[in-house]
């Protein structure tokens, strides 16, 4: 991703058209730079701990017990929320919600800005959201809001997030929680 939003609709904010691609394996993307994963994790933790109403948006891949990894990740996400003093608002499916979403209880990829506006969320983590819906939502968020987006992806990552961490499995989430604890201490918030 190139710049924090709101970027508005025209031209629609699409990071690949600003020559930003997903990071290579073993690396992370922070704004337009390819960086080490640990550096990106530190900045992600800092953003979550310093911006208002930080929120984690867990998606279906971690909300439902598809497999053992999903169960372990779900427990870790609860721990992560405690460490980051963050709220959890789930994206429990991808259906557009009519006539209007309840933004206090859920976020939806088709109109994610409604939840972010309503809760005045200035930093968020996407985790467990299928890649296509994460990408659709991240573009809308960047278009419409000034929310600092962080994507923790189990696959190749999301260049439309301000920080993207790729290949995030149990071990990496545990590492992030440990780094977040350190950052919290450094910020005097522990």
């Amino acid at each position, binding site marked *: 991703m190139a710049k924090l939003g709101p970027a508005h609709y025209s031209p629609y904010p699409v990071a690949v058209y600003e020559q930003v691609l997903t990071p290579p394996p073993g690396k992370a993307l922070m704004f337009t730079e390819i960086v080490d994963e640990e550096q990106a994790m530190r900045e992600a933790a800092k953003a979550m701990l310093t911006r208002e109403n930080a929120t984690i948006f867990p998606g279906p891949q971690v909300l439902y017990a598809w497999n053992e990894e999903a169960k372990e990740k779900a427990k870790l996400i609860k721990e992560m929320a405690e460490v980051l003093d963050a709220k959890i608002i789930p994206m429990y499916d991808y259906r557009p919600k009519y006539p209007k979403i309840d933004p206090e209880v859920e976020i939806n990829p088709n*109109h994610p800005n409604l939840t972010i506006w309503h809760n005045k969320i200035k930093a968020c983590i996407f985790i467990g959201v299928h890649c296509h819906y994460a990408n659709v939502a991240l573009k809308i968020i960047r278009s419409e809001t000034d929310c600092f987006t962080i994507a923790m992806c189990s696959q190749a990552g999301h260049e439309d997030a301000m920080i993207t961490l790729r290949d995030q499995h149990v071990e990496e989430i545990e590492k992030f929680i440990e780094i977040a604890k350190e950052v919290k201490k450094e910020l005097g918030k522990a």
Partner: protein
Amino acid sequence: MKVENKVEKNWAGQRIVSPDYLLFEAPREKHFMTGSEAVKEAVKRASVDASVSYPITPQSEAAHLIGELWAEGYVGVYFRGENEFGVMSEVAGAAMAGGRVITTTSGPGTLRAFENFPMWSGTRIPVQLVLMARGVNSPLSIQPDNLEVDFLLDTGCMIWYAENVQELFDMIIAGFAVAEQPDVHVPIITAVDGFFVSHTREAIYLPPDDIALPPYNPYKSPMPVIDAEIPPGRFLRDPFVMKSNYISYATHASWQWEVRAAIERSRPYAKHYLRGLTEEFGNKDSDIVFVACGTAASQAKEAVRMLEETEGIQAKVVKLKTIRPFPYEELIEATKNAKYIFIPEFNVVGWLEREVRKALYKKSNAEIIGTPRVAGGMTMPKEIIVKEVLEYIK
């Protein structure tokens, strides 16, 4: 040797190997076959779950040969669709159900199926279509012509263009490897010129047929399995616009950009598996440059040889292997010394000329010349290309 550590076999009893091993490392033997036969050989090594066919010249033989693979136990499901619209819908269903799918079509069949192509990309299915180009009606032509590629440019599908039988084989294998990357995951159209490639017998080097690609893993898809409630399934019966204009605009815009972003994300993978998005032939520093794809690139190479032998003029060809994504950077670099850029094409509209002009706008001072351009099945002898070049540069 990068054979996968865990030796596994697919349902046909072939040993599973990585795409890198299959494409770059496995020993190869020389054969002599047509493009249609090369399609069969590629599909045989691709652990394909399903293929649906419908006859139309010149791809009928390739479709029929995939059917033989089903009879031989290499392809999971194979049947003939009701028409091309049915075929492209049916392969979409098979892909949405989690299968690796390939089909073939040509010319008017492409247009009959057309609504499905943006549906494929919008639903993020990595279907492979081998397009054996023949032009479109009217008047009816069954001859080599690639006008239908122009129609496909903005469907949200990747489009690669093979020059010859060998490249067609390799691109089909590589096509699956790239299209199925989780951050790409859009359809791949592998185009070749009908007859010139589909029906022409050429030397080709093939890896053994007892090895094959790993099966497609649908759990890495960027979308969950389709159902009637979750988009895109929901939107097939219940579009955004029917309920809320606001949701329609925002989601539709972002969704369409995302499909195109996915094509852009294919660049590094395509560069790896195709060994570059472009290929150069001739004198690298020449100021006369042909930009071409497919058979037009072959003919341009012959013209480069003839220009040097008969006129002492040096030139080069920049062959584009991918059209979507379009190789902007590679083209700009390859034409930086050009004074004249010729774009030979087998179609009436000059779609590649338009693409090249757009890519080089304010990036090149060269004169861009959309010629020679033949259509409707006319051939493009090297003598014609040389004659047109000489007329321009004199």
